[in-house]
């Protein structure tokens, strides 16, 4: 790993603090504001709106902390429990629920992985597809050679030269100053989690489509990959 000088370290530290502050503020603002409204709410209908939104934003803050902890051990983290058979189609369906993405087809079978980690990775990849796509993305499956691949095809109307830099922790594109850009951990965390299960995440641009692949070992022969 490249050693950073003091100035570069200061820059990275300041940027991380700034970005984490920005990303935490939205869920915390929402939780505080909604909790205060809930305290005064007498209508059942309003309570039914507020409570799911509170849970959603608390989970979002929790996920951000998970990301930071994964990022802190990105090259060394190892799962503490064994992988199990995971219904990848169900996790994909859950990840795109309520989102603009469409799913075509079915995977060739389940994968051998950690369901929480796969769900977490898919969450980031779906977030990215919605954030950076210029039209709704399509999800499909590929398989073969002991691997199940979740392919996310995201239409874009311009070239994205920095795609590989997205795997660098806390990397955010040049437009991050003026556009919503997230924490900059989605791709590296998704890749780290996939690699812990013997899989990987890749991304490339093919004309007007950004193709993201989440590869995971398939389950064969009754549970062995």
């Amino acid at each position: 790993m490249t050693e950073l000088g003091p100035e570069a370290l200061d820059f990275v530290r300041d940027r991380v603090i700034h970005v984490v502050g920005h990303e935490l503020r939205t869920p915390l603002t929402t939780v505080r504001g909604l909790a205060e409204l809930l305290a005064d709410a007498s209508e059942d209908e309003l309570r039914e709106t507020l409570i799911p939104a509170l849970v959603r934003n608390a989970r979002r803050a929790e996920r951000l902390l998970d990301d930071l902890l994964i990022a802190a051990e990105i090259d060394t983290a190892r799962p503490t429990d064994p992988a199990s058979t995971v219904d990848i189609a169900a996790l994909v369906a859950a990840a795109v629920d309520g989102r603009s993405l469409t799913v075509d087809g079915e995977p060739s079978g389940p994968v051998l992985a950690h369901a929480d980690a796969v769900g977490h990775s898919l969450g980031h990849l779906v977030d990215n597809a919605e954030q950076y796509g210029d039209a709704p993305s399509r999800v499909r499956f590929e398989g073969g050679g002991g691997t199940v691949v979740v392919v996310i095809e995201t239409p874009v109307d311009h070239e994205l030269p920095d795609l590989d830099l997205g795997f660098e922790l806390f990397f955010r594109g040049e437009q991050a100053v003026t556009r919503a850009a997230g924490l900059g951990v989605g791709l590296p965390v998704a890749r780290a989690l996939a690699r812990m299960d013997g899989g990987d995440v890749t991304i490339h641009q093919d004309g007007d489509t950004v193709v993201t692949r989440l590869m995971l070992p398939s389950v064969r022969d009754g549970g062995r990959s």
Partner: protein
Amino acid sequence: MTEPPEHIEVVVADDETDIRLLLKLQLRQAGIAVVGEAADGYEAVEQCTTLRPHVIVLDLLMPRMSGFEAIPVLQEQCPQTRIVAYSAVAGEFARTEMARWDIPLRLKNGDADPLIRTIRELAGHPADEHEVC
């Protein structure tokens, strides 16, 4: 002095659905009507052009067209609508740009009072005894 409108109409522009929900409820509780919502700068311009609200609450970091990019378009196409910038982090760039445009900048947090006071001021209502922060 501007004559205050009988009721204040606001468009809320933020790419976060739950922030829009929160603002809608907080402003409604304060007697301010949220007449439109936008998830990016393009929708913000469209909503203001169509609905001609008194004020737009404008998030600065949004996809497709950011708040920074929407401000000059709003000022040209919707001069009747006053803008208050609403951001999770008010860094030096945002502060400098808003000062240059003479647009108030309010930080997102659970306390909506500073934002509500600013909206009332912009819509022509007198400020209360608290200084706008």
